[in-house]
């Protein structure tokens, strides 16, 4: 049985990889690129040198943070699809705080800016939480809609009130904020690369989320309400309060992811700063089984995919947008493979099919007798 399980998992993963590769190859062929060269670049390109390796981690940091928040919300029975918007609100709050207090010391300003980011995301998510708890508004709907509002609000501020005055003077008008004061920058871990100390923060928080969910009374409450709201209510747990708390936590992590990306990488608010981390983070969270110990490696793996895809643009001559298509195909394949791996029913079916195959060619199931 165990041997079968291993073989089954191997087959599923192999089939999924082949399916993804085949579907991607068709797309790549259609735009005139070489599929094999592209694939080789995606998976081996980023691991060739130190820069590539650190870039993987740079991508992994926001993914870890977003995914941790998603894990909290999903475990608490509320599906937060709004991390993207919560990130943006976090970035705005962090930027505003940093620019408003340019003279504060590093040890004071940086924590304040990160906190502001978390708060911005938390409040934005809290709207969806309260709507769900008070009025029963479906959180998927509200968080997706809040994403749109956040995106437009962000663009408006960057093009108007928050635009860097220098951009107006020179007349170039690039929609971006002023550069943050140095006191609000996260330190670089390895000189010459973009890898910043946000990585350490993300790892510490990953452990923190584990403690929160499985070692504290708060986590107990959240998980109970998420796993069986009725039983939680009967046991005296206030489910609406738990939903709002989960959303605040979840949005806080997304907002923090934004603030870390801001203070660690870009040092100013720019357009497309979230680069879809808010959505990819959901996939990372599910891929990591909604557990910090799974989320960290999953985030690194997706970081590899993102960096590798970027490299193909330069080395294999694949148009930029095709990379998004490839990413989508790969994510789809991985997620569906995972569904098959965890599905006991599918496994049982495969086992039966396998046994019949072994029993001999086309046995009649209704035939009396058979193998003992």
């Amino acid at each position, binding site marked *: 049985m165990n041997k079968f399980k291993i073989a089954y998992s191997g087959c599923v993963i192999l089939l999924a990889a082949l399916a993804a590769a085949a579907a991607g190859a068709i797309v790549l062929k259609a735009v005139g690129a070489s599929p094999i060269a592209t694939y080789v670049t995606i998976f081996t390109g980023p691991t060739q040198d130190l820069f590539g390796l650190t870039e993987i981690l740079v991508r992994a940091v926001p993914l870890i943070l977003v995914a941790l928040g998603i894990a909290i919300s999903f475990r608490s029975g509320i599906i937060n699809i709004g991390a993207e918007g919560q990130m943006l609100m976090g970035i705005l709050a962090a930027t505003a705080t940093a620019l408003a207090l340019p003279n504060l010391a590093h040890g004071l300003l940086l924590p304040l800016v990160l906190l502001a980011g978390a708060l911005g995301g938390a409040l934005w998510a809290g709207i969806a939480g309260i709507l769900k708890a008070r009025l029963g508004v479906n959180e998927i709907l509200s968080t997706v809609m809040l994403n749109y509002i956040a995106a437009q609000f962000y663009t408006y501020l960057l093009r108007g009130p928050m635009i860097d005055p220098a951009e107006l003077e020179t007349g170039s008008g690039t929609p971006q904020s002023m550069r943050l004061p140095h006191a609000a920058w996260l330190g670089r871990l390895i000189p010459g690369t973009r890898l910043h100390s946000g990585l350490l923060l993300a790892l510490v928080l990953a452990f923190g989320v584990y403690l929160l969910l499985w*070692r504290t009374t708060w986590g107990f409450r959240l998980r109970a309400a998420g796993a*069986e709201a*009725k039983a939680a209510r009967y046991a*005296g747990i206030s489910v609406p309060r738990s939903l709002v708390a989960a959303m605040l936590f979840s949005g806080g992590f997304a907002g923090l992811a934004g603030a870390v990306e801001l203070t660690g990488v870009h040092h100013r608010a720019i357009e497309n700063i979230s680069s879809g981390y808010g959505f990819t983070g959901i996939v990372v969270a599910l891929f990591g089984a909604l557990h910090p110990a799974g989320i960290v490696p999953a985030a690194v793996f997706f970081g590899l995919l993102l960096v590798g895809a970027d490299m193909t643009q330069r080395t294999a001559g694949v148009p930029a947008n095709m990379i998004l298509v490839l990413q989508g195909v790969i994510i789809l394949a991985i997620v569906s493979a995972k569904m098959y791996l965890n599905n006991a029913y599918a496994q049982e079916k495969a086992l039966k099919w396998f046994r019949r195959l072994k029993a001999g060619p086309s046995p009649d199931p209704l035939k*009396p007798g058979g193998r003992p």
Partner: protein
Amino acid sequence: MKAAAEPITELKLTGITKRFPGILACNDIAMEVRRGEVLALVGENGAGKSTLMSILAGLYQPDSGTITLNGREVRFHDPNDAYARGIGMVHQNFMLVPNLTVVENVALGLRKLHRFMRLDLKEARRRILEVAARHELPVNPDAYIWQLSVGEQQRVELIKTLCFGAQLLILDEPTSALTPQETDDLIDRLKRMSGELSIIFISHKLNEVKALSDRVAILRHGAVVFNGITADHSPAQLAALMTGREIVLPRNEGVGQGGEPILSAEGLKVRGDRGHLALDGLELTLHGGEILGLAGVSGNGQRELAEALTGLRPVEAGEVRFQGRVMTNRSPAAMIGAGLGYIPEDRHHEGIVPSFTVKENLVLKDFSTARFSSWCLLKLREIARNAERLKEKYDIRCSSTAAAGGSLSGGNIQKVILARELAREPRALVAVYPTRGVDMGAQEFIHSQLLARRRAGGGILLISEELEEIMNLSDRIAVIYKGRILRILPALEATRERLGLLMAGVSDE
């Protein structure tokens, strides 16, 4: 699937063995059933009944052993094989789609009726009416499943299985969700149907076994320990064979000495889920050291009363008093904190969090007390120690206290809930159907624990549909009818007949 398999005249199982990791579920089982015969299969929770029947229905393959039909050996690879041979199973949890009609539900399972892009509903209807007429199972083919009562849904399940061509019916605890009236009705119908069918009837209610079956097979720890003619044995003898020892359900021998009033409802008005007044000026007082039985046909406000007392359902008018304090419309947490225990009706969804471990479920109400946490950190070691202690004391049978609560059998889930509630030493306990669907051994245990709590001075409001349970345990018996208490009797004055009349709304004053 082929509709008309050859008639089943005799089904024989020999040497059936099935092993799951760590458990020998079926151990060398032999039994047989003939046409026109009802075989009752009884045993405690976890004795291997369900596994055996799943093998017969083609859901599992046995590790060894043979199934012979009419003298020829057969082998079922999946449920369709079993159906093709005329073996049909009605599961304990109904397999019906609520927002489809009866006809649609039956047609769903009949492959033959799946034409290109549409279902042949006419043919399905014809078959349903034919089966309904032949077996006297009245049904409205156009009713939606959600509109039907549990008893009617049970009937639809039977018709569905018969439409699929079943000649040997396996009924897995068919009465566990039915009211007493519906149960009597079902037993009657099954008796009449059994003439041209074979029926295997799984139950642990021995009075039903006596009423319906011709022969009885008793399973214990995966092996057949008894196989004989039902009429030759009394329910007490069967119970003893089932558990391996004499079972005597404990009785409340005291006379309601009645201490201080603990929990009372005064002029309660509470609305049900559909917006009607489910409780209409209900008056009831529970005293310390007494068990107050609440008898009544289900749906007369029992559920709403339990929920109003525990703070789960808003009270529109009237008062809830607990230990002398007015606690109307306080939160569930406040009621729990004040010392009110609750064994809810739906143990799988209200009583436990199924995906939580047994030890987590055992502290579901107390995890944030100083005993199990400090500064928001859970004391995992204390939680585990608590679970081991309660597992021992309440005889909770699980592989480990780290097993998911939902993976336990119904009786053991009920013991988890009982352990959690009684360990809190509640001043008052509201117990709703505390032994529904649990086996005799567990029932005896739960009853004796409730009586022990009574002796310790706690008050218990026992809401049950089993008159015997109420009469055995109560000091006083209140009869609820249409949201009011019709009458309160001392238990000594209560008889089945008198309670039956009162439950039907006939006041004897």
